[in-house]
């Protein structure tokens, strides 16, 4: 038997958020959501809040340590030169380099991790169920791995159209 997903299209984010709330109350699984711009409530409701900021903080702390170690090694241990009457370990002069390299390393590593985690790479085809999701349409797909029972699909259809879905289609996988 083929499995079916429900694809519901909305015109605005308020209806979309309301619909997701009602679906969750009725224990209907929401598989994915597409929106033209980030809607924070959706991430919160689906428990899909990004953990990228935590990675960034960790990368930033790591970058501070790495840069400091690099500067300390080069300026104090490996090739100590006295300049301007300053001590070898002249901390204030390290700060600017630590500051800049922390920004650079954090930024680069965050971008790389983001690309890897989301599976995005140059030339990748967009996976969108309805073409309008990058423009002005908000889409919920209802479904689960095992497929949905027919009565759940009907229930979901009722909920979605009651919450202002402008178009509901079934999609086979």
């Amino acid at each position, binding site marked *: 038997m083929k499995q079916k997903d429900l694809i519901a299209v909305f015109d605005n984010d308020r209806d979309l958020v309301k619909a997701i709330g009602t679906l969750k109350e009725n224990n209907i699984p929401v598989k994915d959501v597409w929106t033209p711009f980030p809607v*924070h409530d959706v991430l919160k409701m689906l428990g899909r809040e990004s953990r990228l900021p935590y990675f960034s903080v960790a990368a930033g702390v790591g970058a501070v340590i790495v840069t400091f170690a690099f500067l300390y090694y080069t300026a104090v241990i490996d090739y100590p030169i006295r300049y301007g009457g300053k001590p070898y370990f002249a901390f*204030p002069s390290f700060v*600017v380099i630590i500051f800049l390299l922390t920004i650079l390393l954090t930024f680069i590593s965050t971008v790389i991790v983001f690309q890897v985690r989301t599976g995005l790479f140059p030339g990748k085809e967009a996976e969108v169920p309805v073409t309008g999701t990058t423009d002005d349409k908000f889409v919920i797909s209802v479904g689960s791995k095992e497929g949905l029972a027919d009565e759940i699909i009907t229930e979901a259809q009722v909920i979605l159209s009651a919450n202002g879905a402008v178009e509901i289609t079934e999609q086979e996988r």
Partner: protein
Amino acid sequence: MRETFTIPQRVRLLALILTGIGIIALITGFVTDQSRTFTSLLLNNYYFLSLSLGAVFFFSLHHVTDAGWSSMFKRIPESMASYVPFAFIVMLVLFAGVRDIYEWAEPGITETDALIAHKSPYLNIPFFYIRAILLFCAWIVLIILIRRASLRGDIEEGLAWHEKSKHLSMVYIFVFSITFTVASFDWIMSIDSHWFSTLFGIRAIVSSLYYAVALLVIIVILLNKAGYLEALNKYHLNDFARYLFRLSIVFGYLWFMQYLIIWYANIPETTFYYVYRVNEPWTLLFYAELVINWTIPFILLMSDDLARKKAVLIPVSILLLAGFYISLYIQIMPGTTGVLRIGFIEAGSFLGFAGVFMLLFLRTLSKAPLYVKKDPFIQESVSHHL
């Protein structure tokens, strides 16, 4: 929704008591130690002047960028600005103490000190008076115009007064950035008249905005607790916290830039300023300034979930207001009295100025409806959602 603010009797009484303490402190101060009293007059006056001008700057930024989220708080910065005319009066009193505070104003110093003699075309008493009067005139005129445009916009239909406010905000930002630079050079930097830093003006401007936001956060939360500004939600607080977080970075950046360049260049002409301050008895205050104003807010406000909690925002804001005092103290005191002491004169006069600031603020706040119902952004502000 309670639209117009009425001053609670208890708060008015508190403000009056604080003012009374301040008057007593100033009288004892002038009787016992005149130059010390003038110095703390300067510090406190600059402190509150900076907060009120910074608050208007904050709001002007929002007008210019058409930022909607803050328009329901509009009356608060406007009311904070009502301190400026009083600051002018205090400044006129301070004119009498110029010789007590500033080294360059001492009679006969131009004959013994070549550097001050070289700077004397700018740093002389008549020109100092003229500059201060011109600065205050510019601020007072602009603040009256901004307030009037805002009040008229609440009465009349249409966007004409809103556009006018926007235009005035642009003028204010331009004028403020120049005049406040001059003010900080004149009143604070010239205390160490041999020393100079071109970064001083922007530091003063950023500080005024930074601590004005901290004070705004406290006032907004207190008003909310008293039953006003019912639409205040965690997203507004989050936006305020973002201001504080970003400005803490700017503060730390500028603090360090001023230090680094002087440290690196190692020219005796400028290094003495820092050498004096990193040594006893100022060491603790010197580093406390950076820790309180940068490290603590930077760490505490980094996470949005923490930053939107009142239990975090209020202590951080109070700490920042204390940090501003320390920041000014370390800029003013070493060059004037040269002694580290916070006694009755300093603490009492600070409380007195706080009392006057409260009285003026509350009086202006109660004069106009707190809820600006004709502001074009008011709906966006009330239902602000991230």
